[in-house]
Protein backbone atom coordinates (compact mmCIF):
# COMPACT_ATOMS: atom_id res chain seq x y z
CA UNK A 1 0.00 0.00 0.00
CA UNK A 2 0.90 3.63 -0.15
CA UNK A 3 2.89 3.69 -3.31
CA UNK A 4 0.28 3.99 -6.02
CA UNK A 5 1.48 5.72 -9.15
CA UNK A 6 -0.34 8.81 -10.42
CA UNK A 7 -1.89 6.70 -13.14
CA UNK A 8 -3.16 4.08 -10.69
CA UNK A 9 -4.71 6.74 -8.49
CA UNK A 10 -6.43 8.39 -11.45
CA UNK A 11 -7.73 5.08 -12.79
CA UNK A 12 -8.99 4.06 -9.35
CA UNK A 13 -10.78 7.41 -9.10
CA UNK A 14 -12.65 6.76 -12.37
CA UNK A 15 -13.28 3.13 -11.36
CA UNK A 16 -14.95 4.21 -8.12
CA UNK A 17 -17.24 6.51 -10.09
CA UNK A 18 -18.25 3.57 -12.26
CA UNK A 19 -19.34 1.94 -9.02
CA UNK A 20 -21.32 5.04 -8.10
CA UNK A 21 -18.90 6.38 -5.51
CA UNK A 22 -17.13 9.73 -5.53
CA UNK A 23 -13.76 9.41 -3.89
CA UNK A 24 -10.89 11.62 -2.89
CA UNK A 25 -7.17 11.23 -2.30
CA UNK A 26 -5.83 10.88 1.21
CA UNK A 27 -2.37 10.56 2.75
CA UNK A 28 -1.40 6.95 3.51
CA UNK A 29 0.15 8.27 6.71
CA UNK A 30 -1.77 10.55 9.07
CA UNK A 31 -2.23 13.81 7.15
CA UNK A 32 -5.77 13.15 5.90
CA UNK A 33 -7.44 14.34 2.68
CA UNK A 34 -5.38 16.29 0.12
CA UNK A 35 -6.04 18.57 -2.84
CA UNK A 36 -7.05 16.64 -6.00
CA UNK A 37 -3.95 17.89 -7.80
CA UNK A 38 -1.65 16.09 -5.34
CA UNK A 39 -0.12 12.74 -6.25
CA UNK A 40 2.05 12.59 -3.16
CA UNK A 41 1.09 14.02 0.22
CA UNK A 42 2.07 17.73 0.09
CA UNK A 43 2.69 17.70 3.85
CA UNK A 44 4.82 14.57 4.44
CA UNK A 45 5.61 13.18 0.99
CA UNK A 46 3.89 9.84 1.64
CA UNK A 47 1.88 8.11 -1.04
CA UNK A 48 -1.84 8.62 -1.44
CA UNK A 49 -4.80 6.28 -1.32
CA UNK A 50 -8.40 6.58 -2.42
CA UNK A 51 -11.14 7.07 0.14
CA UNK A 52 -14.88 7.10 -0.43
CA UNK A 53 -16.47 10.50 0.14
CA UNK A 54 -19.93 10.88 1.61
CA UNK A 55 -21.05 12.66 -1.55
CA UNK A 56 -22.21 15.63 0.48
CA UNK A 57 -20.73 19.08 0.00
CA UNK A 58 -21.49 22.62 -1.02
CA UNK A 59 -21.04 24.70 -4.14
CA UNK A 60 -17.82 26.70 -3.85
CA UNK A 61 -18.41 28.42 -7.16
CA UNK A 62 -20.20 27.96 -10.46
CA UNK A 63 -19.97 29.02 -14.10
CA UNK A 64 -22.59 28.79 -16.82
CA UNK A 65 -21.20 28.30 -20.31
CA UNK A 66 -22.96 29.96 -23.20
CA UNK A 67 -20.13 29.55 -25.69
CA UNK A 68 -19.95 26.18 -27.35
CA UNK A 69 -16.40 24.87 -26.96
CA UNK A 70 -17.40 21.22 -27.45
CA UNK A 71 -20.09 20.04 -29.85
CA UNK A 72 -21.27 17.40 -27.36
CA UNK A 73 -22.10 19.97 -24.72
CA UNK A 74 -25.38 21.71 -25.42
CA UNK A 75 -25.28 25.30 -24.16
CA UNK A 76 -26.12 26.80 -21.79
CA UNK A 77 -24.84 24.40 -19.16
CA UNK A 78 -23.49 24.94 -15.67
CA UNK A 79 -20.26 23.60 -14.24
CA UNK A 80 -19.83 23.55 -10.48
CA UNK A 81 -16.80 23.64 -8.26
CA UNK A 82 -17.91 21.58 -5.29
CA UNK A 83 -16.23 21.44 -1.92
CA UNK A 84 -16.73 17.93 -0.53
CA UNK A 85 -17.44 17.83 3.17
CA UNK A 86 -14.10 16.03 3.53
CA UNK A 87 -12.35 19.17 2.21
CA UNK A 88 -11.14 18.64 -1.39
CA UNK A 89 -12.74 20.65 -4.19
CA UNK A 90 -13.45 19.41 -7.69
CA UNK A 91 -15.21 20.36 -10.90
CA UNK A 92 -18.48 18.52 -11.59
CA UNK A 93 -21.63 18.80 -13.63
CA UNK A 94 -24.85 20.28 -12.28
CA UNK A 95 -28.31 18.72 -12.16
CA UNK A 96 -31.01 21.19 -13.11
CA UNK A 97 -34.31 20.81 -11.27
CA UNK A 98 -37.33 23.01 -11.95
CA UNK A 99 -35.14 25.05 -14.31
CA UNK A 100 -32.64 25.91 -11.63
CA UNK A 101 -29.16 24.67 -10.86
CA UNK A 102 -27.43 24.67 -7.46
CA UNK A 103 -26.29 28.15 -6.48
CA UNK A 104 -22.95 29.17 -4.99
CA UNK A 105 -23.02 28.36 -1.29
CA UNK A 106 -25.85 25.83 -1.48
CA UNK A 107 -25.67 22.30 -0.01
CA UNK A 108 -25.43 19.61 -2.66
CA UNK A 109 -25.38 15.82 -2.96
CA UNK A 110 -23.53 13.72 -5.52
CA UNK A 111 -25.46 11.78 -8.11
CA UNK A 112 -24.39 10.01 -11.30
CA UNK A 113 -25.52 11.03 -14.74
CA UNK A 114 -25.28 8.62 -17.69
CA UNK A 115 -21.80 7.21 -18.39
CA UNK A 116 -20.83 7.64 -14.74
CA UNK A 117 -20.47 11.42 -15.09
CA UNK A 118 -20.41 12.98 -11.63
CA UNK A 119 -23.04 15.61 -11.01
CA UNK A 120 -24.44 17.35 -7.96
CA UNK A 121 -27.97 18.38 -7.10
CA UNK A 122 -29.36 20.73 -4.51
CA UNK A 123 -30.22 19.18 -1.14
CA UNK A 124 -33.73 20.17 -0.15
Amino acid sequence: MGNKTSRELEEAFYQSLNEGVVSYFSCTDLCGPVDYTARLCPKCGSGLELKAASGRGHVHSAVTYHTQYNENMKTPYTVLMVELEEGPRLIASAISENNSVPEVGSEVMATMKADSVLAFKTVR
Partner: protein
Amino acid sequence: MSYKRPVAAICGMGKTDLSRKPSKHSVRELAVQACLRAVEDAGLKKDDIDGLMLNRSPLEPSETLPMHVQRDAGFKDLSLLTSVEAEGSSAIQMIQYASLAIQAGMAKNVLCVFADCPVGATQGGGATFAMSMELTGIPGWEAQHGFYGATGAYALAAARHMHLYGTTHDHLYAYARSSREWAQLSSDAFLRKELTRDDYFSARWIAEPFRMFDCAFPVNGAIAVVVTAADAAKDMKQPPVYVHGLGQGHAAVPNFAGFEPEVNSGAEIAAKTAFKTAGVSVPDLGFCEVYDAFSFSGMLAMEDIGLCKKGEVGPFVAEGHTAPGGSIPVNTGGGHLSGFYMQGMTPVHEAITQVRGFGGDRQVAKNDIGLVTGSGGRMEFHAAMIVSPHAKLN
Protein backbone atom coordinates in the same frame (compact mmCIF):
# COMPACT_ATOMS: atom_id res chain seq x y z
CA MET B 1 17.39 40.19 -2.71
CA SER B 2 19.57 43.24 -3.12
CA TYR B 3 19.56 45.26 -6.30
CA LYS B 4 21.53 48.29 -7.29
CA ARG B 5 18.87 50.97 -7.90
CA PRO B 6 17.52 51.79 -10.38
CA VAL B 7 17.59 48.13 -11.23
CA ALA B 8 17.83 48.79 -14.96
CA ALA B 9 16.22 50.88 -17.69
CA ILE B 10 14.06 50.16 -20.70
CA CYS B 11 15.60 52.09 -23.59
CA GLY B 12 13.75 50.72 -26.60
CA MET B 13 10.35 49.39 -27.61
CA GLY B 14 9.21 47.91 -30.91
CA LYS B 15 5.77 46.83 -31.99
CA THR B 16 4.58 45.20 -35.20
CA ASP B 17 1.24 46.18 -36.64
CA LEU B 18 -1.37 44.61 -34.40
CA SER B 19 -4.19 43.05 -36.37
CA ARG B 20 -7.49 41.21 -36.15
CA LYS B 21 -6.89 39.71 -39.59
CA PRO B 22 -5.15 36.35 -40.05
CA SER B 23 -1.44 37.08 -40.15
CA LYS B 24 0.57 36.66 -43.37
CA HIS B 25 3.62 36.36 -41.15
CA SER B 26 4.45 33.62 -38.68
CA VAL B 27 4.80 34.30 -34.97
CA ARG B 28 8.54 33.89 -35.47
CA GLU B 29 8.68 36.51 -38.23
CA LEU B 30 6.62 38.95 -36.19
CA ALA B 31 9.03 38.50 -33.27
CA VAL B 32 11.97 39.37 -35.52
CA GLN B 33 10.20 42.46 -36.80
CA ALA B 34 9.36 43.70 -33.29
CA CYS B 35 12.96 43.08 -32.16
CA LEU B 36 14.45 45.04 -35.04
CA ARG B 37 12.05 47.91 -34.43
CA ALA B 38 12.95 47.96 -30.73
CA VAL B 39 16.66 48.14 -31.58
CA GLU B 40 16.03 51.03 -33.95
CA ASP B 41 13.75 52.76 -31.42
CA ALA B 42 16.57 52.58 -28.87
CA GLY B 43 19.03 54.09 -31.33
CA LEU B 44 21.18 50.98 -31.08
CA LYS B 45 22.75 48.78 -33.71
CA LYS B 46 22.09 45.07 -34.03
CA ASP B 47 25.59 44.34 -32.80
CA ASP B 48 24.86 46.18 -29.55
CA ILE B 49 22.37 43.47 -28.61
CA ASP B 50 24.00 40.72 -26.57
CA GLY B 51 20.96 39.15 -24.92
CA LEU B 52 17.64 37.82 -26.20
CA MET B 53 14.69 36.48 -24.20
CA LEU B 54 11.64 34.96 -25.87
CA ASN B 55 8.09 34.48 -24.70
CA ARG B 56 5.32 32.73 -26.60
CA SER B 57 1.70 32.06 -25.70
CA PRO B 58 1.36 29.08 -23.30
CA LEU B 59 -1.02 27.55 -25.86
CA GLU B 60 1.64 27.34 -28.57
CA PRO B 61 4.31 24.65 -28.94
CA SER B 62 7.95 25.60 -28.47
CA GLU B 63 8.73 25.52 -32.20
CA THR B 64 6.40 28.53 -32.64
CA LEU B 65 9.08 30.79 -31.19
CA PRO B 66 12.37 28.89 -31.15
CA MET B 67 15.70 30.26 -30.08
CA HIS B 68 16.57 30.40 -33.78
CA VAL B 69 14.85 33.79 -33.73
CA GLN B 70 18.38 34.92 -32.90
CA ARG B 71 19.65 33.76 -36.31
CA ASP B 72 16.53 34.98 -38.12
CA ALA B 73 17.12 38.47 -36.75
CA GLY B 74 20.89 38.37 -37.23
CA PHE B 75 21.97 38.88 -33.64
CA LYS B 76 25.52 37.56 -33.43
CA ASP B 77 27.56 36.47 -30.41
CA LEU B 78 24.88 36.67 -27.74
CA SER B 79 25.93 36.02 -24.16
CA LEU B 80 22.33 35.41 -23.05
CA LEU B 81 19.60 33.52 -24.92
CA THR B 82 16.59 31.82 -23.39
CA SER B 83 12.84 31.38 -23.39
CA VAL B 84 10.63 32.30 -20.44
CA GLU B 85 7.48 30.25 -19.98
CA ALA B 86 5.65 31.82 -17.09
CA GLU B 87 2.47 32.59 -19.04
CA GLY B 88 1.09 36.09 -18.44
CA SER B 89 3.79 36.91 -15.91
CA SER B 90 6.54 36.33 -18.48
CA ALA B 91 6.90 39.85 -19.86
CA ILE B 92 7.85 41.30 -16.48
CA GLN B 93 9.85 38.19 -15.59
CA MET B 94 11.93 38.64 -18.76
CA ILE B 95 12.64 42.25 -17.77
CA GLN B 96 13.56 41.06 -14.28
CA TYR B 97 16.01 38.38 -15.48
CA ALA B 98 17.44 40.77 -18.05
CA SER B 99 17.97 43.38 -15.30
CA LEU B 100 19.71 40.88 -13.04
CA ALA B 101 21.89 39.64 -15.91
CA ILE B 102 22.87 43.24 -16.70
CA GLN B 103 23.69 44.00 -13.06
CA ALA B 104 25.83 40.86 -12.91
CA GLY B 105 27.72 41.79 -16.07
CA MET B 106 26.32 38.91 -18.10
CA ALA B 107 24.93 41.19 -20.82
CA LYS B 108 24.57 44.88 -21.67
CA ASN B 109 21.51 45.21 -23.91
CA VAL B 110 18.87 42.53 -23.65
CA LEU B 111 15.89 42.22 -25.99
CA CYS B 112 12.69 40.75 -24.51
CA VAL B 113 10.01 39.80 -27.02
CA PHE B 114 6.49 38.38 -27.02
CA ALA B 115 4.75 37.32 -30.24
CA ASP B 116 1.44 35.60 -30.87
CA CYS B 117 -1.16 34.99 -33.60
CA PRO B 118 -4.33 33.82 -31.86
CA VAL B 119 -6.62 35.22 -34.56
CA GLY B 120 -6.89 32.78 -37.46
CA ALA B 121 -8.94 32.48 -40.62
CA THR B 122 -11.75 30.55 -38.93
CA GLN B 123 -11.77 31.87 -35.42
CA GLY B 124 -11.68 35.25 -33.79
CA GLY B 125 -9.19 34.44 -31.09
CA GLY B 126 -11.67 33.14 -28.55
CA ALA B 127 -9.92 29.78 -28.84
CA THR B 128 -7.08 31.48 -27.02
CA PHE B 129 -9.14 30.72 -23.97
CA ALA B 130 -10.69 27.44 -25.05
CA MET B 131 -8.19 24.86 -23.91
CA SER B 132 -9.48 22.59 -21.20
CA MET B 133 -8.09 23.83 -17.92
CA GLU B 134 -6.87 21.17 -15.58
CA LEU B 135 -7.73 21.84 -11.97
CA THR B 136 -7.54 18.26 -10.67
CA GLY B 137 -4.76 16.92 -12.88
CA ILE B 138 -6.98 13.87 -13.48
CA PRO B 139 -6.80 13.27 -17.25
CA GLY B 140 -9.98 14.19 -19.07
CA TRP B 141 -11.85 15.24 -15.93
CA GLU B 142 -12.50 18.89 -16.65
CA ALA B 143 -13.25 18.29 -20.35
CA GLN B 144 -15.82 15.63 -19.39
CA HIS B 145 -17.79 18.32 -17.57
CA GLY B 146 -17.34 20.92 -20.31
CA PHE B 147 -15.06 23.02 -18.16
CA TYR B 148 -12.99 24.88 -20.72
CA GLY B 149 -10.48 27.56 -20.75
CA ALA B 150 -9.17 30.40 -18.75
CA THR B 151 -12.60 31.95 -19.28
CA GLY B 152 -14.24 29.28 -17.14
CA ALA B 153 -11.55 29.42 -14.47
CA TYR B 154 -11.79 33.18 -14.15
CA ALA B 155 -15.58 33.11 -14.33
CA LEU B 156 -15.54 30.70 -11.37
CA ALA B 157 -13.29 33.10 -9.51
CA ALA B 158 -15.51 36.07 -10.29
CA ALA B 159 -18.58 34.15 -9.11
CA ARG B 160 -16.79 33.34 -5.86
CA HIS B 161 -15.90 37.01 -5.33
CA MET B 162 -19.51 37.96 -6.00
CA HIS B 163 -20.67 35.41 -3.43
CA LEU B 164 -18.19 36.45 -0.74
CA TYR B 165 -18.22 40.23 -1.16
CA GLY B 166 -21.40 41.14 -2.99
CA THR B 167 -19.59 42.19 -6.16
CA THR B 168 -22.18 42.71 -8.90
CA HIS B 169 -22.55 42.72 -12.68
CA ASP B 170 -22.75 46.49 -12.42
CA HIS B 171 -19.28 46.44 -10.89
CA LEU B 172 -17.95 44.34 -13.76
CA TYR B 173 -19.53 46.82 -16.15
CA ALA B 174 -17.91 49.70 -14.27
CA TYR B 175 -14.52 48.06 -14.79
CA ALA B 176 -15.11 47.46 -18.51
CA ARG B 177 -16.41 51.01 -18.82
CA SER B 178 -13.33 52.50 -17.14
CA SER B 179 -11.07 50.59 -19.54
CA ARG B 180 -13.14 51.74 -22.49
CA GLU B 181 -13.01 55.39 -21.41
CA TRP B 182 -9.23 55.19 -21.50
CA ALA B 183 -9.32 53.35 -24.83
CA GLN B 184 -11.42 56.15 -26.29
CA LEU B 185 -8.42 58.42 -25.66
CA SER B 186 -5.84 55.98 -27.01
CA SER B 187 -4.74 55.74 -30.63
CA ASP B 188 -3.25 52.31 -29.80
CA ALA B 189 -6.59 50.83 -28.66
CA PHE B 190 -8.88 48.68 -30.81
CA LEU B 191 -12.27 49.26 -29.17
CA ARG B 192 -12.87 53.01 -28.97
CA LYS B 193 -16.63 53.42 -29.20
CA GLU B 194 -18.39 54.43 -25.99
CA LEU B 195 -19.41 51.36 -23.96
CA THR B 196 -22.90 52.17 -22.73
CA ARG B 197 -24.70 50.18 -20.07
CA ASP B 198 -26.94 48.86 -22.76
CA ASP B 199 -24.00 47.81 -24.96
CA TYR B 200 -22.47 45.92 -22.04
CA PHE B 201 -25.60 44.21 -20.73
CA SER B 202 -27.04 43.34 -24.13
CA ALA B 203 -23.80 41.70 -25.33
CA ARG B 204 -23.88 37.91 -25.33
CA TRP B 205 -22.86 35.78 -22.39
CA ILE B 206 -19.56 33.97 -22.81
CA ALA B 207 -19.35 32.13 -19.50
CA GLU B 208 -21.55 33.55 -16.78
CA PRO B 209 -20.79 35.85 -14.95
CA PHE B 210 -18.77 37.08 -17.97
CA ARG B 211 -20.35 38.77 -20.93
CA MET B 212 -18.46 39.58 -24.10
CA PHE B 213 -16.99 42.86 -22.87
CA ASP B 214 -15.53 41.16 -19.79
CA CYS B 215 -13.12 39.31 -22.05
CA ALA B 216 -9.86 40.32 -23.71
CA PHE B 217 -9.65 41.47 -27.33
CA PRO B 218 -7.11 39.16 -29.03
CA VAL B 219 -4.89 40.46 -31.84
CA ASN B 220 -1.98 39.13 -33.87
CA GLY B 221 1.41 40.77 -33.48
CA ALA B 222 4.55 41.14 -31.42
CA ILE B 223 6.07 43.59 -28.97
CA ALA B 224 9.73 43.78 -27.92
CA VAL B 225 11.61 45.93 -25.42
CA VAL B 226 15.33 46.56 -24.88
CA VAL B 227 16.60 46.47 -21.31
CA THR B 228 19.90 48.20 -20.55
CA ALA B 229 21.90 49.41 -17.54
CA ALA B 230 20.33 52.37 -15.74
CA ASP B 231 23.35 54.63 -16.18
CA ALA B 232 23.59 53.80 -19.88
CA ALA B 233 20.02 54.92 -20.57
CA LYS B 234 20.22 58.58 -19.70
CA ASP B 235 21.92 59.73 -22.89
CA MET B 236 20.12 57.50 -25.33
CA LYS B 237 17.64 58.28 -28.10
CA GLN B 238 14.45 57.81 -26.06
CA PRO B 239 13.44 59.18 -22.66
CA PRO B 240 14.64 56.52 -20.19
CA VAL B 241 12.16 54.27 -18.44
CA TYR B 242 13.84 53.38 -15.17
CA VAL B 243 12.95 50.09 -13.54
CA HIS B 244 13.01 50.56 -9.76
CA GLY B 245 11.15 47.59 -8.41
CA LEU B 246 10.55 44.01 -9.46
CA GLY B 247 8.86 41.11 -7.77
CA GLN B 248 7.29 37.73 -8.39
CA GLY B 249 4.62 35.94 -6.36
CA HIS B 250 3.45 32.37 -6.81
CA ALA B 251 1.22 31.44 -3.90
CA ALA B 252 0.00 27.90 -4.78
CA VAL B 253 -3.17 28.21 -2.71
CA PRO B 254 -4.81 24.73 -2.67
CA ASN B 255 -8.32 23.92 -3.89
CA PHE B 256 -9.28 22.80 -0.43
CA ALA B 257 -11.61 23.76 2.42
CA GLY B 258 -10.44 26.86 4.23
CA PHE B 259 -8.54 28.31 1.25
CA GLU B 260 -9.69 30.89 -1.28
CA PRO B 261 -7.42 30.67 -4.34
CA GLU B 262 -10.10 32.50 -6.33
CA VAL B 263 -9.79 35.74 -4.38
CA ASN B 264 -6.28 35.65 -2.87
CA SER B 265 -3.53 35.61 -5.44
CA GLY B 266 0.25 35.79 -5.46
CA ALA B 267 -0.09 39.28 -6.95
CA GLU B 268 0.03 40.53 -3.38
CA ILE B 269 3.50 39.03 -2.82
CA ALA B 270 4.71 40.20 -6.23
CA ALA B 271 3.54 43.77 -5.64
CA LYS B 272 4.91 43.91 -2.09
CA THR B 273 8.32 42.79 -3.33
CA ALA B 274 8.26 45.32 -6.16
CA PHE B 275 7.29 48.12 -3.76
CA LYS B 276 10.01 47.07 -1.35
CA THR B 277 12.77 46.99 -3.96
CA ALA B 278 11.68 50.43 -5.20
CA GLY B 279 11.26 51.86 -1.70
CA VAL B 280 7.78 53.22 -2.47
CA SER B 281 4.20 52.31 -1.56
CA VAL B 282 0.66 52.50 -2.92
CA PRO B 283 0.03 56.21 -2.17
CA ASP B 284 3.11 57.08 -4.27
CA LEU B 285 1.62 55.57 -7.44
CA GLY B 286 0.55 57.87 -10.24
CA PHE B 287 -0.87 55.12 -12.42
CA CYS B 288 -1.22 51.33 -12.72
CA GLU B 289 -1.15 48.98 -15.68
CA VAL B 290 -2.56 45.61 -14.66
CA TYR B 291 -2.91 42.33 -16.52
CA ASP B 292 -6.63 41.98 -17.19
CA ALA B 293 -7.47 39.25 -19.68
CA PHE B 294 -10.85 39.36 -17.94
CA SER B 295 -12.53 42.23 -16.12
CA PHE B 296 -12.33 40.26 -12.90
CA SER B 297 -8.61 39.53 -13.22
CA GLY B 298 -7.89 43.25 -13.38
CA MET B 299 -10.18 43.88 -10.42
CA LEU B 300 -8.54 41.17 -8.34
CA ALA B 301 -5.11 42.60 -9.19
CA MET B 302 -6.20 45.99 -7.87
CA GLU B 303 -7.19 44.47 -4.54
CA ASP B 304 -4.02 42.40 -4.24
CA ILE B 305 -1.80 45.36 -5.12
CA GLY B 306 -3.59 47.29 -2.37
CA LEU B 307 -5.36 50.05 -4.35
CA CYS B 308 -8.40 49.19 -2.21
CA LYS B 309 -9.27 46.72 0.53
CA LYS B 310 -9.98 43.05 -0.18
CA GLY B 311 -13.57 42.67 -1.32
CA GLU B 312 -14.07 46.38 -2.04
CA VAL B 313 -12.89 46.62 -5.62
CA GLY B 314 -16.44 46.66 -7.04
CA PRO B 315 -17.50 49.89 -5.33
CA PHE B 316 -13.96 51.28 -5.84
CA VAL B 317 -14.25 50.96 -9.61
CA ALA B 318 -17.88 52.08 -9.65
CA GLU B 319 -16.84 55.31 -7.90
CA GLY B 320 -14.67 56.12 -10.90
CA HIS B 321 -11.26 56.06 -9.22
CA THR B 322 -9.59 54.20 -12.09
CA ALA B 323 -11.19 56.04 -15.05
CA PRO B 324 -9.89 59.21 -16.72
CA GLY B 325 -10.00 62.00 -14.12
CA GLY B 326 -10.04 59.47 -11.26
CA SER B 327 -7.66 59.29 -8.29
CA ILE B 328 -5.56 56.40 -9.68
CA PRO B 329 -5.62 55.85 -13.44
CA VAL B 330 -5.64 52.12 -14.25
CA ASN B 331 -5.03 50.60 -17.69
CA THR B 332 -4.68 53.88 -19.47
CA GLY B 333 -4.49 52.27 -22.90
CA GLY B 334 -7.72 50.34 -22.41
CA GLY B 335 -5.92 47.21 -21.15
CA HIS B 336 -6.71 43.81 -22.60
CA LEU B 337 -10.45 44.43 -22.81
CA SER B 338 -10.53 47.54 -24.99
CA GLY B 339 -6.89 48.08 -25.95
CA PHE B 340 -5.42 44.86 -27.29
CA TYR B 341 -4.46 41.45 -25.93
CA MET B 342 -0.71 40.90 -26.21
CA GLN B 343 -0.62 39.02 -22.90
CA GLY B 344 2.03 40.40 -20.50
CA MET B 345 3.33 42.94 -23.03
CA THR B 346 0.08 44.95 -23.07
CA PRO B 347 0.57 46.51 -19.61
CA VAL B 348 4.34 46.80 -20.17
CA HIS B 349 3.80 48.63 -23.47
CA GLU B 350 1.38 51.07 -21.91
CA ALA B 351 3.59 51.76 -18.89
CA ILE B 352 6.54 52.57 -21.16
CA THR B 353 4.33 54.86 -23.23
CA GLN B 354 3.19 56.72 -20.10
CA VAL B 355 6.65 57.00 -18.53
CA ARG B 356 8.06 58.36 -21.78
CA GLY B 357 5.26 60.92 -21.82
CA PHE B 358 4.07 59.73 -25.24
CA GLY B 359 0.48 59.01 -24.18
CA GLY B 360 -1.07 61.87 -26.17
CA ASP B 361 -4.72 62.36 -25.19
CA ARG B 362 -4.45 59.60 -22.62
CA GLN B 363 -1.22 60.83 -20.99
CA VAL B 364 -1.61 60.72 -17.21
CA ALA B 365 -0.91 63.84 -15.16
CA LYS B 366 1.39 62.02 -12.73
CA ASN B 367 3.69 59.58 -14.49
CA ASP B 368 6.45 59.72 -11.85
CA ILE B 369 5.78 56.25 -10.44
CA GLY B 370 3.79 53.50 -12.13
CA LEU B 371 3.07 49.90 -11.20
CA VAL B 372 2.81 47.19 -13.86
CA THR B 373 1.57 43.64 -13.28
CA GLY B 374 1.47 40.35 -15.13
CA SER B 375 -0.35 37.15 -14.27
CA GLY B 376 -0.84 33.67 -15.63
CA GLY B 377 -2.42 30.31 -14.93
CA ARG B 378 -5.54 30.33 -12.80
CA MET B 379 -4.57 33.41 -10.74
CA GLU B 380 -1.37 31.51 -9.97
CA PHE B 381 1.73 33.13 -11.49
CA HIS B 382 2.41 36.79 -10.81
CA ALA B 383 5.01 39.44 -11.44
CA ALA B 384 5.08 43.18 -10.75
CA MET B 385 7.33 46.07 -11.71
CA ILE B 386 7.73 49.74 -10.69
CA VAL B 387 8.78 52.17 -13.42
CA SER B 388 9.59 55.86 -13.51
CA PRO B 389 11.07 58.57 -15.75
CA HIS B 390 13.32 59.52 -12.79
CA ALA B 391 16.58 57.85 -11.83
CA LYS B 392 15.96 58.73 -8.18
CA LEU B 393 12.54 58.29 -6.59
CA ASN B 394 13.02 59.94 -3.19
